[in-house]
């Protein structure tokens, strides 16, 4: 029998009969895609914009001939409102930020990583859920409440058990910052350890490793990028913390000689003085320069960690 072909070519017939999606549906999908791309790019945009703004406010003081950058970085004399001799030296505050952050990390990293290991390796399922919720709660406490706890409760304990003259010092600030950083280290550390495939653990046990050997020699090296990221985020939180350290460190411009000395951090100084500094005055610009300094410190910490990770990876 002869097959009668349709008058139009086959492709055209098929195209005409295929159902089309409505135009507005396509447009909305495209718009959503643009929006999602924008969100992704926005993180970079915001960081650049903030850095640009802070640097723009600080720039005039750098070009001011009376301002000496070496005095700014290496002198511990901070007298921005002096009537007789204005001096802008932030060394004491760099030492303050550094000492409080280092102490906080010395306390937080063993505790945080230990808790992450416990949650990932030793915990039963139900205990794990409860503990995770409680640790998230610890992260949800506002920083000003932490500062208040440091100022009232912890300072009394420190005076009683260490015989310090004042309870608001590096030790107080360090403990509070450690308590604030531990939830971050635990959350991200636990995720990093969870991401290590079970095959590693099974291989280790099959070769006769003890539990500690398994953790120290198999899991930590395998999860080191994630664990380093966890510690870095904890450091970032400690360096950037303002309200808690404003209340808990004693706010004294003083290079600390012991853990029981009061210090002032860069962040607390900016918070305390920016309200009073007349807009665009030299004091105001120097405070923004301290903001730039904080940016650079965070950037250097991240850069070091990145290099360490890369160096470890190459081995």
């Amino acid at each position, binding site marked *: 029998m002869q097959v009668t072909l349709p008058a139009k070519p086959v492709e055209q017939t098929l195209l005409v009969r295929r159902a089309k999606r409505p135009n507005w549906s396509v447009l909305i999908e495209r718009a959503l895609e643009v929006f999602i791309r924008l969100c992704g790019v926005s993180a970079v945009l915001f960081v650049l914009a903030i850095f640009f703004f802070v640097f723009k406010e600080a720039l005039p003081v750098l070009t001011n001939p009376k301002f000496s950058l070496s005095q700014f970085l290496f002198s511990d004399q901070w007298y921005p409102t002096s009537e007789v001799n204005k001096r802008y030296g932030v060394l004491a505050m760099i030492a303050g930020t550094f000492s409080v952050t280092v102490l906080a990390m010395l306390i937080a990293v063993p505790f945080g990583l230990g808790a992450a290991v416990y949650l990932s390796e030793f915990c039963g399922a139900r205990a794990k859920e409860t503990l995770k919720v409680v640790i998230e709660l610890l992260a949800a406490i506002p920083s000003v409440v932490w500062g208040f706890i440091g100022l009232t409760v912890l300072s009394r304990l420190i005076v009683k058990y260490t015989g310090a003259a004042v309870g608001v010092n590096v030790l107080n600030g360090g403990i509070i910052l450690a308590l604030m950083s531990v939830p971050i280290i635990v959350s991200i550390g636990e995720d990093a350890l969870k991401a290590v495939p079970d095959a590693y653990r099974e291989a280790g046990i099959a070769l006769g490793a003890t539990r500690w050997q398994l953790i120290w020699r198999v899991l930590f090296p395998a999860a080191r990028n994630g664990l380093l990221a966890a510690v870095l985020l904890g450091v970032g939180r400690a360096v950037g913390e303002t309200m808690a350290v404003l209340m808990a460190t004693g706010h*004294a411009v003083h290079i600390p000689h012991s853990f029981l000395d009061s210090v002032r951090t860069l962040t607390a100084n900016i918070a305390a003085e920016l309200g009073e500094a007349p807009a665009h005055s030299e004091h105001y610009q120097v405070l923004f320069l301290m903001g730039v300094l904080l940016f650079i410190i965070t950037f250097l910490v991240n850069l070091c960690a990145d290099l360490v990770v890369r160096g470890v990876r190459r081995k």
Partner: protein
Amino acid sequence: MQTAFKTRFTAVLALATLASLLQCGCGDSGTGSKGSAGAAPKVTIQNKGSDTMVNLAQAWAEEYKKVAPDVSVEVSGGGSGVGIAALTKGAIDIANASRDMKPEEIDEAKKNTGKEPKEIIVGYDALAIYVHKDNPLSEITIDQLAQIYGEGGQITKWSQLGVTIPGAANDEIVRVSRQSNSGTYEFLREHVLNKKDFKLGSRDMNGSKEVVALVGSTPTAIGYSGMGYATPAVKMLKVKKTASDPAFEPNPENTLAKTYPIARSLQVYTLGEPKDEIKKYIDWILSPDGQKVVGASGYVPLPHK
């Protein structure tokens, strides 16, 4: 079809949410009127500044609400410096200050707002020197204070003042001070340190109450704050101008008689002459009712004329 309806519904919902958000964002937020009655039924007066005066200003605001219920006074602290900075920007109506405005601040205000700030003294206060209640010291001279607090000052231990603190491991004087935005800080620097700088390393507290709280919990501490902030955990030292002068206690009589060496006036600043509701509020503060609140808060009311 079901899916077509759902997508259409979601799209309409998203657009509606966006439209309403834009409406809220672009709408006029309506800041409080600056004391000009008649435009809005409720008048708001923005009051900011001295931490020394913040409790007093709050007490005034609460009392005034009983006198003029349709006027609301919003009080916040931050320090005399913060209040004056806000006034020079024209952001507030009344600035509280426990120190005088500096000439450069007055120029800044004239430049920004075109009006000259007007000072109105509303009370007096004595700057008390606080030590822990178990501290055996009872008197101090202005020079000793300058040596303790000033840059290059030689007194760093309690033994140099001739006292030993019972039960203290360390003899070092723990200096408690205020942050640099404080009028109390500026007043001490001007009148005790003669405009020289403070010694670095003092514990710089945020407010008047925190200074007294820290001194009260630290046996080897010394601090300065308004006399209205005294608590049972501290005691106030008698101050004498020089070693040979008599020592005076910080109390209202000595403040008004000017025998207590470190007494200061508490003032409010407005941009230009106060008008309308602001004038009525300040007149009330200067009246016997307002001054009664000053006395009740622990400060010294203006002498009766």
